[in-house]
């Protein structure tokens, strides 16, 4: 079963993609994009896990303690911030889409064709 966490990451990615592609509501689609991104957190943190190890913080643990990989945690933190900001920006665009097009259903947006 030691592959399960990795496979779950892939599953989350695909589920998010399915959500975006079939979405009838742009806010929902932005949410699905966030789901897609969360797959990267799961993969990164799974890759960095070490059995029996503690958090990589030594303020209350001896410096000899075995810890999980701190690098992937730092990457995941960066990734979270990137994801949150992309979400904010896309939601701002959705707000304007609702105003200018009167709908947030991607099926009803027209204007850029051919």
């Amino acid at each position, binding site marked *: 079963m030691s592959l399960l966490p990795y496979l779950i*990451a*892939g599953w989350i*990615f695909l589920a998010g*993609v399915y959500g*975006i*592609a*079939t*979405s009838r509501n*742009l806010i929902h*689609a932005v949410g699905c*994009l966030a789901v*897609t*991104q969360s*797959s*990267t957190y799961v*993969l*990164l943190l799974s*890759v960095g896990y070490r059995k029996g190890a503690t958090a990589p913080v030594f303020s209350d643990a001896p410096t000899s303690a075995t810890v999980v990989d701190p*690098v*992937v945690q730092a*990457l995941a933190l*960066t*990734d979270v911030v*990137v994801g949150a*900001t*992309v979400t904010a*920006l*896309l939601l701002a*665009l*959705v707000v*304007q*889409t609702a105003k*200018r*097009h009167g709908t947030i259903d*991607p*099926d009803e*947006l*027209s*204007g*850029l*064709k*051919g």
Partner: protein
Amino acid sequence: MGRLLPLIVVVPLLGAALLVAGGRHVPRPVAEAVAGLAAAASAGLAAVALTRPPAVSWLGAWGPRDGHSVGIVLVGDRIGLGLAALTSLLVVAVLAYSWHYFDEPPHGHGGAFPALVLLFQAGMCGFALTGDLFDAFVFFELMGVVGYALTGYRVEEARPVQGALVFGFVNSLGGYAALLGIGLLYARTGELGMAQTGRALDESAGASGRGGDALVVAAFVLILTALLVKAAAVPFHFWLPDAHAVAPTPVCMLLSGVMVEMGGYGAARVYTTVFAGPGGVPAAGARRTLLVLGVVSALAGALMCWQQRHVKRLLAFSTVAHTGLFLTGIALLTPHGIAGTALYVLGHAGAKAALFACTGILLDRHGSVDECELHGKGRDTAGTGLLFAAGGLALAGLPPFGTSLGKALVEEQSPWLPALFVLVSAVTGGAVLRVAARVFLGAGQAGRDGEEGSEGPETAGGEEEPETGRRVRRPPVPMVTVAALLLAGALAVGTVPGLTGAVTTAAEAFADHGGYAAAVLDGRPAVHPAGAYDWWTWTGAGLGLLSAALAVGLAALSVGRRSRAVPGSAPLRRLHSGHVGDYVAWTVAGIGLVSLLALW
């Protein structure tokens, strides 16, 4: 000089921070001057670094010990630095183009537009210089975020927000796919640096005697996905025409001129540094992938370009076509292919940005970018018309433009390449020349288009708001000057004698998988002596003249005809639906296609 490399990225960041903090308290010219200075300082630093020996900069002084480091490295090799310099120069041109005339809301929040442009510059320069996979992802996202905001800048209109949204969805999705790939590589190698990852892959291949396995291929495909989305290769390209058609003109100049090319650069860089060794992806697989997608993009882009009447969208599809040619050049995976492509990119940046600049002038004067509606309206501005036509000829590959030289150098690499390059150059250049003839000469019939000819859906481009607040009567001087200077730059790329030699040497270093790792990790820069190189040849110049003549011929033949539609292309046009779901479906289908091509 190595120590100062990070300044190329951070000086624009500082400029943006100053503009956000103080922009609303200073008059607009001051804000614009601050932005211009920051962009120019960064360009100057990149130019100085280009004159010195290649150097690397380990941020935080975390240099490697025994080939391993805990830090991030910026690599000042010639190609990366050249791209950073091109980006910065283009940003200076864009700021000059926007000077005074370009309407910059939100009012009472001065400096927001130049600050965004500086952040865009920082993102692209960081991406061009970094030697670290995760750091490249961060700058990829910085480029992306600023790109979406700038594309949707004109929120008063309906289409920009739609174009920005599809751009945002597809690019972000690509970025996350790449991050999965980076995660897979990290799990295998325990490294994030490009040089370290490449070396670790090779070592594990050497130890086990096998080449890249499924994991390496998957990582390659996933990372390549993000870069091909950026490079707008078919079928990842759908966002590009939508974004370019709606983005403000100065933003289009940056998107088409250099951001899309970053995708091709990234693909070449990641392949040569990480995957080109024995533990990576076999060269045949990488070559097949890039070649197929490049050729298909070039042909599809040219076909779509020809049929557009929305001038910005036409130019956008010509960017798809030309990036397809760049990917074809990169796919050869030879120093000469890369050198030719690099020159092509330089020339293309000047020509394409100049064409967008001229289109912006049309928009500001007439409130339209519709070829049919603009018919004959440009007759009183011969200067702009000449620049537009010269840009078209440059796209078509007329010697001695840099586009023509780059095209010639790539064409020489294989006997079947001239056919593709001549065809695509002629069609895209011909489309631009057709627009030039109709708009600036009033050739052909004045078209109340729309009801006739076109089969299937299309985006027209009439009734657009000028970007200058209200319509201008005469072409603003800074806008025309910038367009002329950009074309002069495209001309210089083809005529300055030493440039080709320097680029060829740079390309040899760029394609050297082991040399890159040695330079970055062991402090032993590989020596690539300036050797013999090709410049203009009779064949190359002849093929350039041929494609330019074909372009003129195509334009002349079509200018009197009412329909631009190419029979049988309606299904292809219908695929460009402006629908986020469609584009995302094509993006994952593209992942599947790339995996098939890489594995075969």
